[in-house]
Structure formats: C-alpha cells, structure tokens
C-alpha cells in the first residue's frame, strides 16, 4: 500500500491506477473537496480514458461508472498508485 505514488495528471492515456489521496493545493481548497465528494478517495480505481486535443488538457478520467473531465491542474491534486491492485 505504501508503494510510490504519482500524480493523476502524469499518467499517460489509457493508464490504470488506484487513487491514494487528494491533496489540498492551498488551505480550504474547494476543488480538492469537490474531488473527494465526486469519489476520488483511497482505493478507487481510475483510468485515463482520453486526453483532449490541443495540448492534452483536459483529461477524461473514468472513475467507478462515471467519466469526469478534469483539467491537468485539477488532476494534479490526485495522487495515485500505479501498481495493479485487485
């Protein structure tokens, strides 16, 4: 469980990973709180389903049964473990 983590924004297209945590970019970060509310919590599987044209921003993240468009700055708040976890 304590394996190395990377930012969700650094994953390539098609990569699978498991959420470790969401970090606040600053105190009382509403974007980080919303990410947690939307299900970016420890143990949740995510996949980079697509990247947008023109610079690869935003990303399309599949989490659970839902697809969310996240900008890279938003995805950078999410730390993921890239090792395969059942």
């Amino acid at each position, binding site marked *: 469980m304590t394996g190395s983590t990377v930012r969700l924004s650094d994953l390539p297209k098609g990569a699978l990973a498991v959420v470790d945590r969401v970090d606040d970019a600053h105190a009382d970060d509403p974007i980080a709180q*919303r990410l947690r509310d939307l299900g970016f919590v420890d*143990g949740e599987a995510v996949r980079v389903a697509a990247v947008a*044209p023109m610079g690869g*921003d935003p990303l*399309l993240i*599949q989490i659970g049964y839902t697809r969310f*468009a996240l900008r890279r700055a938003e995805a950078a708040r999410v730390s993921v473990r890239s090792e395969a976890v059942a």
Partner: protein
Amino acid sequence: MSADALRIALVGNPNCGKTALFNLLTGGRQKVANYAGVTIERKEGRFTAPSGRVLQILDLPGAYSFDAVSPDEQITRDVLEGNYPGEAPPDLIVCVADATNLRLHLRFLLEVRRLGRPVVLALNMMDAARRRGIAIDVAELSRRLGLPVVETVAVKRGGARALVERVDGELPLPAPAQADDAASRADLHSQVRELLAATVSMPRATSKLDDALDRWALHPVFGLAILAGVMFLVFQAVYAAGKPMSDLIGDGFGWLGGHVAALMPAGPLQSLVVDGIFGGLGTVLGFLPVILVLFFFILMLEESGYLPRAAFMLDRLMLSVGLTGRSFIPLLSSFACAIPGIMGTRSIQDPRDRLATILVAPLMTCSARLPVYALLIAAFIPAHRVFDLFNLQGLVLFALYLAGILGAMAVAWVMKHLHRDRSEHALLMELPAYRLPKLRDVAIGLYERGAIFLKRLTGVILALTVLMWFLSTFPGAPAGATLPAIDYSFAGYIGRGLAHVFGPIGFNWQMSLALIPAFAARETAVAALATVYMVGGDVAGGGLAHALASQISLPSALSLLVWFAYAPQCMSTLAIIKRETASWRNVAISFGYMFVMAYVASLLTYQIASALT
C-alpha cells in the same frame, strides 16, 4: 383524504432524470436534455394520486453534494434544509438515482438521508441498466438503506407507477438526523462501496458502445473534425431544408394578401391589412421553418449527450480566451436565444467565468436574427455552388455565425486581460452516457419553440408592425407634394434623423428606422422593412427580397448583416442580464461594448466593400 397537498421534492445528482420523472408525473413539459445542469430553478407541479390525494411535486436542480459550489446547487440545498425563503421543507424527499451510475448517486442519497426526513429512493433508468446486464438486489438495498426503494423508467409511459403507489401510501419513517462534517463525509464513500458490493452486480463499469463512440468522438484529430463537420452540416441543413418551406409560406401570404386587397375598399384599412399584417407579419412567419430546422439539430445534439464532449474538446480553447468548457453549453443555447443561455450560466461555479459568459452570450447569433440574415442573404447573395458541393448562401450564413463566435472570443480575451485575475477555476465536468434522442422530447422541444415564436409574432411583433405602419402612413403628403408620400410621414422624419448617425455605416433611412423595433424583437427588422417599403410602394411583384436588392446597395446590405452579428441585444436580454447579475453596471457595459463593436465592424465593412465595388 387530506385537504393539504403532500409536498414531495425530487432531488439527485445532475442528469439522473429528475425532470423527465417530473414531466411524467405531472404531465409537465419542462426541458430535458442529456447533460448536467439543465434544470437551474425549482419547478413546481401537482397531480392527483389514485387515492384522491393531491401531490405537489418540486423539481430541483441536480447536485453532487451538499457542499454546494454553484448557484443552482445552492437552491437544492436550501430547499432541502428548509432555508429557502418562503418555503417549508418538503414532507417527502424522492431521491432519484441513475441505476447505471449508482456509486456517485448513492453517496448523495446517504447525504440526503442524514437530514432526518422521510426519503424514498427511485432507481431510474432501470431499462438501460437491464440492457447493460446490471443486476440490482432491490430488496436488499432497501433493507440496508432502511428506506423504500422503487424502480422507475422516466422516459416510458407508466414508468413511474411503482413510485406513485409508494408515495401515495404511508410516509416512510425518517432515518435519524446526523450532523454533516468532513470526517463523516469522507466515510460515505466506504459505506457506498459496501452497499454496492452487497447488492449490485455489474458486468463492466462502462457501456461498451459508449467507449467505442468516445474513441472516435474524443479522438484528438477525428474528434475535432467530427465537431467541425457537425456544426457545418447544421448550417447547410438550415438552408437546404428550411429555405424552400420559408419561400412557400412567403408566397402563400403574398397571394393571400393580394386576394384580400381585392375584396377590401382602397384606403388606410386596406393598407394596414395588406402592407402591415400580410406584408410585415407574413414575412416574419415565413421564417418559422428555418428556426424549427435549427432547433431540431440543437435538440438532437442536446439529447444525444454529444454536447459535453464538445465542451471537453473545446475547453482548452475556451480557457485560453478566458472562458471555460462549462461556458460551451450556455453559449450554445444562446444560438436559440440569449435568455435561456444567460440563465443557463447558473451551472458555472466561478462568478468571474459566469459574468464573462453572460457578457459574450448575446454575441452568439440568436434565432431571432435568423430571419434578418435569411432575408438579406436571399436578396444579395447569389445561390452559387462552391466546389460543386456547398451552397454559397449557406456559407455566408455560416460565416456570420462564425463572426459572432470570433467576436465573443475576442471580447472574452480582452476581459480576461482587464481583470488580471490569476485564481484557478475548476472544470470538473461529468460526461454522460450517450442516448438515442427520444422522438417525444424532440417533438415537445420543437412545439415549445414554435409556440414561443408564434406568441411573439402575435404579440410584440404584431404591435410593433402596426405601429410601424402607422408611422409610415401618417401624416399623409401635403397638397402639391413632389416626393413620395412616405417621405412626409413620421417614419420619414425619424428615419432621416437616425440616418445622420447610421449614414457613415451605409444605412439609408428605412434601414435606420428598422433598427428601433429590432431593439424590442430582432425579427421585427424584417417586418419593419417590409412595411416601410410596401407603404412606400416600392414592393412590386418580386417580393421584399427583390425590392431590397433594387433599393439597397451591396455594401449597405453587408454592413447591415455585420451590424446584426454584433448589434446590441434586445431589451429582454438586457432585462435578464440585470436580473441574473443584479447590476445596472453590467447592463451598461454589455449594451455599450456591443454598440461600439457593431458600429466599428459595420463601418469597416461598408467602407471596404464600397472601395472594392
């Protein structure tokens, strides 16, 4: 049987089908579409249950969490917590959940349950869930949640029968109220995980078809090509399909007007009916098919779930000019009319992004401008084929829409640099599953738009047209007059006065005069031109387009087209900007910048076109 209506609130995540359910229950015709944030206000309806009890249904904007981040989510939270001004908390909360997307939707249910009020869970879209092989143990889910669970299919007749039976019965017991804090909120996800593990089996997390479609629709190269192709096709279709029908209606009214004229004695009344009503209104009515074709395509795009994909692809571009991908849908609605577009900005969380979107929304060419474009294009642009494939008239129409879009981007970019705001704005947008558009929803949407158009036509446009006829007819020419009678009328004087202002951009007095009623309703510019030229006796056999071509030079016509691409919005739009931003300053900014922009753009167009011809 109770005298008081039972008050029921429909809540849930965005795009789970609350409004579809509301329409099914109450026979309402509220707008539904396939993207998050269609409903932005609380809507009320009532119906009588089989027991004879009256049920009052409240449809609320979708919310992901009680930690509201946008004005529409705030409404939902306030109503549920009993903090909405002038409204008691509901007797029963029906939490609607998309059965194909339960993880997030159940989390919101758990938040709602903590309010300590009676709750019923409606598992909606059960048909789609079954198609994807999703099995839900409803009895077990109900037992674990400690509240009644019913299955619904909001898009099918009778799809809410189980829900009606349940809410018509005894009120379920509420769960004990719990405080809402960060620690307990973090715990909700693990509760959902347990619930899902115990009650739901799902063959795969996503629909195979959606994944396949998205591989093309969101492809970095093909995705953009598809988007450009779709947009282009819409404008070509507006011309190819709408125009012949418009011509038919226009000819029909001309013929009818001619026959009515023959039956009536000559005089002011005949002139009012023939020139004002048949000439003015008939011309505007002729554009109904064009507008309906445009709406057909907008509705199909809305229903299919493609719009949020387009927003996803364009987010970077929008961000670079100081907007957000979330602005895309309100801006696209503004092609219908800026008013719903501006109201739709309530789903934009960031106040600055929201204001920027409100200020540029009127630059999107609304459907009221379509008649003006269509008339002038028909009169001045030859119907050539370009590369044997595209209609030149369709291309010009596309260019005018593009001019509005580019103008909006430029304005947003300038605003971004004036503000020097470097704070971060979130996108965080859900992409819904694709859906085949429902014929019934598209039909309702078209009917509603057609009804709005006809209401405007018989209301404000009719009144203005009669006024224009009056101004053009009275006072009559004095004895021994050498000029046409209309030159001595009120219209002649007002128009010539305005022409001092608009002369430099190539408008003659008739065109300048038509700008006044256009400020109340854009379509009236067409009716006003028709009335003024008909009273002036300049419209002979060939119809209005023919008359215009003989009276107005090409540079003037191009200048008028450009004017309408940027011209200050109509009065209703200004009123809605005041309401949504609660600031006269924003109204003044909005009106002022568009006037200057339109004047400068028209001036350039006229001067350059005059130099070239």
